């Protein structure tokens, strides 16, 4: 049998926490390992592929990371990921300013835009209330949301937040915040499974949840 070069997968498999004889490779593994969702095993596999694998992958990756870091920003009005500020959605005159959809993360905008039925604008909170993770009322942009509602004469606020306890609590806070304002508040209907995350909801489910949004 030929023992010359194991594939990255094989090499990573044998790795039970020891270190490579290359500090440079170790540095790369550690950097990758700090990314969300990557343990040391996967980080090792990816690092080996980048370093030893053929093709343009590594160069392309290095360049696209640099470019993305330069060009990507968050929209100062809504918090969406964009290259132009304000973003396309905030600038478009086809969008209805009176309809504002509140989401937790910029990723949550994607399923709405993909499905294409929503013609209002968005507001990204960034996170959900969760004291266990150090997230308090003061950490979320509720003041900006309040200003946005008043300045743009929003008539309906749609809360598209996860149906987790954290999503519910955040929704409750917003409900109390706008109690005295004259606008209708709705939440996506229960098409989204309880405890489910919005970003992983399919289009049909999302559309149904939107149509049957209930006042809150």
């Amino acid at each position, binding site marked *: 049998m030929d023992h010359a070069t194991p594939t990255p997968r094989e090499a990573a498999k044998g790795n039970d926490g020891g270190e490579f004889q290359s500090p440079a490779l170790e540095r790369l593994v550690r950097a990758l390992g700090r990314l969300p969702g990557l343990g040391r095993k996967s980080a090792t596999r990816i690092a080996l592929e980048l370093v030893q694998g053929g093709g343009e992958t590594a160069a392309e990756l290095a360049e696209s990371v640099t470019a993305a870091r330069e060009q990507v920003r968050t929209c100062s009005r809504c918090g969406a990921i964009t290259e132009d500020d304000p973003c396309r959605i905030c600038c478009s005159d086809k969008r209805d300013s009176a309809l504002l959809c509140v989401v937790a993360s910029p990723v949550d905008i994607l399923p709405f835009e993909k499905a294409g039925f929503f013609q209002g604008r968005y507001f990204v909170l960034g996170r959900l*209330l*969760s*004291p*266990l993770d150090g997230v*308090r*009322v*003061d950490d979320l942009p509720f003041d900006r949301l309040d200003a946005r509602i008043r300045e743009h004469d929003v008539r309906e606020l749609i809360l598209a937040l996860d149906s987790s*306890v*954290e999503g*519910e*609590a955040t929704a*409750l*806070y917003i409900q*109390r915040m706008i109690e005295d304002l004259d606008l209708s508040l709705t939440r996506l209907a229960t098409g989204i499974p*309880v*405890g489910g995350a919005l970003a992983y909801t399919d289009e049909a489910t999302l559309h149904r949840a939107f149509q049957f949004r209930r006042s809150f």
Partner: protein
Amino acid sequence: MRLLEASLLDFRNLAEVQLSFSPGVNVLLGDNGHGKTNVLEALNYPALARSFRGARDEELIRFGSEACHLRLAIAEGEKILDIEVGLDRGGRRRMRVDGDEVHRRVELVGRLATVVFDPQTVELVRGGPEMRRRWFDQGISSVDSEYLIHLQAANRALKQKASLLRDVRRGFSSLGTVSRDLETWNAELAAHAAPLVRKRADWLSRAAQAGRDSYMDLSDEKQELQLVYKQGVGSEDPGGTDADFSREILAVLDYITSDEIRRGRCLSGPQTDDVDIILDGVSLRTYGSRGETRTAAISLKLAQAEIVYGMRGVRPVLFFDDIFSELDKDRSRKLQERTAKDHQVFIATARAEDVAGWEPAGASTWTVHEGVVTIR
């Protein structure tokens, strides 16, 4: 409801076990430590989506194995339910119902309805309030699929709130900066506490009725067993919708906030609920004799089984693990005959005399020896 078949792989000390059960009485005999409780634990796993002994999933995997697997065929009336569970050492849990994967515990819990009687059962009367909460939480979950969702949500909200209170107490946060957070988390807690408290009140009133009847049946003295629900969050249920009730609860929670801040922890809520168990006007926890305590605890479990029948129209499967050694012969036999009339029962014991002289029709008897189960 009846267990028809089970196949177990690397579950505890059971390397590979395949069983077809009697629809009536199934007796597991074997010396101490040979695996009787392990069999019951496996058969009961789908009912709670966890071990009834409170073991962590990983403990269920046979020493030296990477994973365990169990598959049960369950008859409910005409329907046959096929449940599969796989657990591995990485903490992954695979659950399938009729071949379709389900991802959350709540989707499995309660499909198989069971009631377990084991030596721990007396703790229901003698132990701390958490024993009684576990009893009604399991009992209600098995008849009401929404219950567990509210329970998990309320517990999560409590954890969130507790972390705020802790931070204030340690001086990491000032009161001013967290008061809006506390109000919000109280509101979230109240939203789930209202349905929880209502479901508990309803279930416990059914349990009181059925428990009283069972106690009368089992004991010769005609004493009256009584249950009184002690609601931890002291607010009256005004009737009306859950939202109305949750506003009442919220008012109480907001009222005690300053106390909670001073003490640095959650003082009131559904997590402090309890039940007083009373025999002829006297608290059993404090004054009960051993026999009274045991009979009352068994009566409460029987009540749980009766409610499943009342609300779902199915008779749960009953597991008796080693409890007859604690009862005198008459009472044991009464309990065996009474339950075997309507339920499929599993009896695990090291003492053959527990079932000696009792030969119900169609019973199966098994021997459990070093993790191997053979029919007699």
